[in-house]
């Protein structure tokens, strides 16, 4: 039987096998985002039962602000780790870019645009440098970025100067981390996003029809409908407080772009291929070295963005911006979201869910009046628990041959 002569029958067969397969795969343990979502719901129920303020618009609005910097860095971790590399300098680059932004705006009175360009330039430049040393010299990225972790933290102190902190009053920069969308803007934006996703999905349906694949109209309708409901609920809920924070829009937009790049473009496919089997990718003609450099450069760019957001939220830059705890939380968030330390596996949206888990635990423990020490212990325990579950699940799947 060939697809050319009997496309409908062939696809009907595939679809049937596909559904059975999916049930089997599901039963044998490829659970996707489900464990993280279940864990998240559990965390929320726990804290809500302990403190009725947890699931209020005000607190969830705060939660989105608290998770912003970690979320941006966790996405950087996914991009780099999927390619089979690691970037330990993320926290320090966040710090040094924040310091540069503060100095350029406050001491040197640069224009906002020029200062932002220089800040992002520094982030990308550091990423490129670390990428090139990794690829051209052949030093593992773990060591290159470990060196970067120390060196850029030192540079951060040097840039800020002896005072150790610097106020930033630039209204544009401050707005990023502290302003909210007006309700009508938020609703318009949400509608525009739903419309854009609908258009893209309809184009994909037509593409599938063109090639005789099942168009999956119902699944697409469900997807767009769910997105519309979720966005409407989010906007309505946040409007009960001050509205939708700019930073939420910012990191969700970054997530959407990165997610699209990773899943839908040649570049994204190459990143997964390099992390999965670098030798196979090389033989297939994929420029493995360039891909590695690019992922580390993207990581540097995102660390620069995290630096800008940190500066904005603090109305200042200081020697405490960035650093090792932030780096480790970002890695933990990505790993809780299923990113593999060995490359080739990880999803952007899952890193956002992982960040939400960590931020929820920290926020909830804060509401309960627990100290920072408890927060750290809980975060560490959740990380090990999540990775252990994933590891056990994987072993079960290997045994089941899936």
């Amino acid at each position, binding site marked *: 039987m060939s697809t050319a002569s009997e496309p409908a029958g062939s696809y009907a067969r595939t679809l049937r096998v*596909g559904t059975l397969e999916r049930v089997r795969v599901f039963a044998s343990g490829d659970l996707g985002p489900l464990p993280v979502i279940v864990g998240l719901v559990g965390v929320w129920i726990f804290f809500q039962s302990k403190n009725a303020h947890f699931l209020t618009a005000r607190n969830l609005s705060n939660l989105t602000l608290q998770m912003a910097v970690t979320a941006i860095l966790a996405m950087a971790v996914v991009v780099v780790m999927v390619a089979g590399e690691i970037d330990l300098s993320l926290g320090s680059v966040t710090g040094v870019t924040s310091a540069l932004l503060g100095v350029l705006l406050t001491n040197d009175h640069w224009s906002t645009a020029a200062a932002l360009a220089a800040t992002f330039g520094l982030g990308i430049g550091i990423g490129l440098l670390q990428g090139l040393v990794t690829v051209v010299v052949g030093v593992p990225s773990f060591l290159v970025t470990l060196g970067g972790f120390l060196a850029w933290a030192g540079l951060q102190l040097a840039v800020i100067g002896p005072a150790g902190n610097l106020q930033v009053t630039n209204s544009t920069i401050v707005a990023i981390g502290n302003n909210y969308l007006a309700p009508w803007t938020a609703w318009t934006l949400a509608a525009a996003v739903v419309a854009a996703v609908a258009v893209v999905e309809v184009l994909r349906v037509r593409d599938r029809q063109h*090639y005789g694949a099942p168009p999956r109209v119902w699944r697409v309708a469900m997807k767009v409908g769910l997105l519309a409901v979720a966005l409407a609920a989010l906007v309505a809920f946040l409007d009960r407080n001050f509205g939708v924070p700019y930073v939420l829009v910012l990191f969700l937009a970054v997530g959407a772009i990165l997610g699209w790049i990773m899943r839908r*473009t*040649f570049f994204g496919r190459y990143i*997964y*291929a390099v992390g999965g089997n670098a030798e196979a*990718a090389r*033989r*297939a003609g994929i420029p493995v070295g360039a891909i590695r450099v690019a992922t580390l450069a993207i990581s540097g760019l995102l660390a620069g963005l995290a630096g800008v957001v940190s500066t904005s939220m603090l109305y200042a830059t200081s020697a405490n911006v960035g650093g090792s705890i932030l780096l480790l939380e970002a890695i933990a968030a990505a790993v809780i979201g299923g990113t593999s330390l060995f490359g080739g596996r990880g999803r952007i949206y899952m890193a956002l869910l992982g960040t939400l888990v960590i931020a929820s635990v920290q926020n909830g423990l804060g509401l309960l009046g627990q100290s920072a020490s408890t927060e750290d212990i809980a975060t560490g325990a959740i990380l090990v628990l999540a990775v252990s579950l994933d590891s056990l699940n994987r072993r079960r799947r290997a045994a089941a041959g899936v």
Partner: protein
Amino acid sequence: MVTPPTVTGSSPQQTRKNDPPFLELRGVHKRYGGVTALRGVDFDVWAGEVVALVGDNGAGKSTLIKTISGAVHADEGEFFVDGKRVTLGSPHASAALGIATVYQDLALCENLDVISNLFLGKEVGGGPLPGVLRRLGESAMQARARETLDRISINVPSLDRPVAGLSGGQRQAIAVGRALLWGPKLVLLDEPTAALGVQQTAQVLELVRRLAESGQAVVLISHSLPDVFAVADRICVIRLGANAGTFLRSDATVEKVVAAMTGGLTIEAA
């Protein structure tokens, strides 16, 4: 140097004697520093036939295959494709001439699904953005993957599942499918059954036969003489970097082939 046994009728089908072979190698030499890997090897393969390349470890089989796939540049020797002289010196040049290689380690990305592996490095797509930001044409790739796999009856449970979940035989089939996607005229298979069990070996050998029947020239390296006898039309023996005999399968016996591999009558001494 022992004179190779004379070959009678180099093609299994008499009609082919009128056509030039798809690929012909004459007097190929390759030296690695002081070591001579190939000393004047001749080799040819016609469309629609399976030629097995056999020889002891270090005989030069892999080097010969690599000169054809373009991974190694021969020091001396002439290459002809469809009777026309060509230069082989890079994987790209070989691929452009319709020569596809399936490596022994398969070179699959276990984390990617079947379609992604089939199109690895040769993705199809477009969209408004340039370069590597082009959008993957998922439906187009899926349709073409299905067509290619159906054509040679390769069955895999699902095209959108990671290769990690497939059996050894299915992976071999995917690696062959990848070679076939671009309509090659010659497929080089390096030890395709080395890591497989009995049943999977049989499936892969069937697949090799189907390739030849659909008009591809197939060159197979194998250590397993039972596999070679099961599938090859001709058996080409290499010994110490030189031709040590070519046999039609119908004329060949295991004893003759082993004798050629090990140096004629000195089997015990070798």
